[in-house]
């Protein structure tokens, strides 16, 4: 067991997978000698060589398409998008080729795309997006979004071992802002399973990624009002753990969804619909959503702060929901 940062946990998980399985290889822009824009793969090229740490040309369509081809041939590519935002360039390959391959002709596509995403670092509209909902609507993909170092290592391993295209959303704000205990040995976190990060009986707060920490703080804030919030960290977005959500909501009778991605068309809408459809008679209040406002991610600090959810906004929403 060691206490490490979120980004170190990703590196650790990835390195262990590369050591364990010769068919795992990394590819992406500047991931070799430079170690990637965020240094996740620093030192990998020395350890694993140029063949397994492939510094690519600047072309996301090619990176995604090549990963798909190599995966069909039985390799296990882990592609890095320098910033999650640039996955928009790989859209056609991912959505029309990668996601539909197994369904159409039975070939497995065991690949991972790592997506450094999210805001809070004043990186502007093209380096701060949370594009998970773009892909949430694409059957055939799997989406995961760890919130802690422990989950980050366990989920990267599961993603690598999965036989489908897995989008691994790693949050840039969490990289160096979050530390935690991570076992040195091998373990995985099953894709599709959520985790209760805090037990409560009054409200179920469903969240993931960067918003888990803020949600836990907000949950703590409302204990003063005698409100006990259950914080459920989805960890997997597609498929997501519907069972655990419904079970928790049936216990608490109130539900709230928090995500950093913008509100309209976000994942929260789908989760809300599931709850309303399958647990309507248990609800004491309408399902509430907290998310970023429906604009691009602005650059200037006051604008970005206004754009994004934070502990204060979540606390306020919890209070409103409790009082409904």
């Amino acid at each position: 067991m060691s206490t490490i940062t979120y980004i170190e946990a990703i590196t650790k998980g990835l390195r262990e997978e590369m050591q364990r399985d010769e068919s795992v290889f990394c590819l992406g822009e500047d991931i070799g000698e430079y170690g990637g824009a965020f240094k996740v793969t620093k030192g990998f090229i020395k350890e694993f060589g140029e063949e397994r740490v492939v510094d690519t040309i600047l072309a996301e369509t090619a990176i995604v398409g090549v990963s798909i081809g190599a995966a069909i041939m039985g390799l296990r590519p882990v592609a890095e998008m320098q910033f999650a935002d640039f996955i928009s360039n790989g859209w056609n390959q991912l959505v029309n080729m990668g996601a539909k391959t197994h369904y159409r002709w039975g070939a497995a596509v065991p690949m991972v795309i790592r997506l450094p995403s999210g805001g809070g670092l004043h990186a502007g509209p093209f380096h701060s997006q949370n594009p998970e909902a773009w892909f949430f609507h694409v059957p055939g993909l799997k989406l995961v979004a760890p919130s802690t170092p422990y989950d980050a290592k366990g989920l990267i391993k599961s993603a690598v071992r999965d036989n489908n295209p897995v989008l691994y959303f790693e949050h840039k704000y969490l990289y160096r802002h979050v530390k935690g205990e991570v076992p040195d040995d091998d373990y995985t976190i099953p894709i599709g399973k959520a985790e209760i990060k805090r037990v409560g009986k009054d409200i179920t707060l469903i969240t993931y990624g960067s918003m888990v920490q803020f949600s836990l703080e907000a949950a703590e804030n409302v204990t003063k009002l005698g409100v006990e919030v259950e914080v459920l960290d989805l960890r997997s977005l597609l498929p997501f753990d519907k069972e655990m959500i419904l079970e928790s909501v049936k216990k608490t009778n109130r539900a709230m969804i928090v995500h950093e991605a913008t509100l309209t068309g976000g994942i929260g809408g789908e989760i809300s619909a599931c709850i309303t459809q399958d647990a309507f008679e248990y609800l004491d209040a309408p399902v509430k959503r907290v998310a970023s406002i429906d604009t691009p991610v602005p650059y200037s600090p006051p604008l970005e702060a206004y754009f994004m959810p934070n502990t204060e906004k979540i606390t306020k929403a919890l209070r409103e929901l409790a009082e409904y």
Partner: protein
Amino acid sequence: MVEIAEAKKRSTNRKPKAKKTKLSRKQLTDLYYYMVLNRALDDRVTSLYKQGKFQGGAFVSRGQEATSVGSAYALEEGDVIGPMIRNSGAILVRGVPPREFLANYLGKKTGPTQGKDGNSHFGDLKRNIFAPVSMLGVLIPVCAGAALAFKMKKQPNVALTWIGDGGASIGDFHEGLNFAAVMKLPFVLILENNGYAYSTPTSKQSLVEDFVIRAQGYGIPGEIVDGNDVLAVYEVTKRAVERARKGGGATLIEAKTFRMKGHAEHDDAFYVPKKIIEYWQKRDPIINYEKYLLKEKVLSKKELTDIQSSVAKEMDEAQKFAEESPLPEAKEAAEGLYAS
């Protein structure tokens, strides 16, 4: 199609040839002023970044001033430009004041994006400047679209944009340039081959040494130019632009230059061999142009220094303006999504 060998001969990567230019003294002075302004602006961005005055990335174009300034200077007011991150020189030539640049870097309300975006990521409709997005290559089809509009409206204007040796690997490069070629659009693409794309050397980006040979594949003229020679860049661009204005279609220009710093201020460029840096240091576009101006007796030493100090003053004023400008109000984040 200019033959490659001939094109290569033109690329000296040395100080400007002391040959007769048709440019007036005023124009030659302008070119110097804008290059000095470009560098001073970059240096100011670096120092503000190092002082922690803003947190976004700081992208500068040291060593590439001649390419941005020389090419933009060859255009007319009504022409459209689509600058990339290292073309702040071109934006300056179009008349955007440095104070607006710095305000944008600092996320201030007085910047062209009013805090919505950072660095040089802005457009200016009244000056026909299209704002870039971070996704490299996106502006190539978009500027081809501007060129298409000129053609449809029978306006004698040209659209010009830039791309790096890295960005040239993007699919949009092919689609946009081929579109412009086939439609014979008044479009100029300047490929700034500056040795590195982030940490990736050009040799790992493409197997061809001269990107200009791609022009052949599209059936359009292609020319190589010494990107550190502001007069050469001006001339080659002027040629392409005039051809485009007359209905001669698109041109690909490859400017050979070098990125004298890391990708951004957070990158110390440890991956660049010292020898290469030294080689290019001797070819600094500003220093070499100074030598030319002195040798040709266009400007005296004193006049050069005067320009430098007036630029320094301009930059102090710009910084003061940017720092004293207010930040936007938080709720402005929600405004301006749709055009009315």
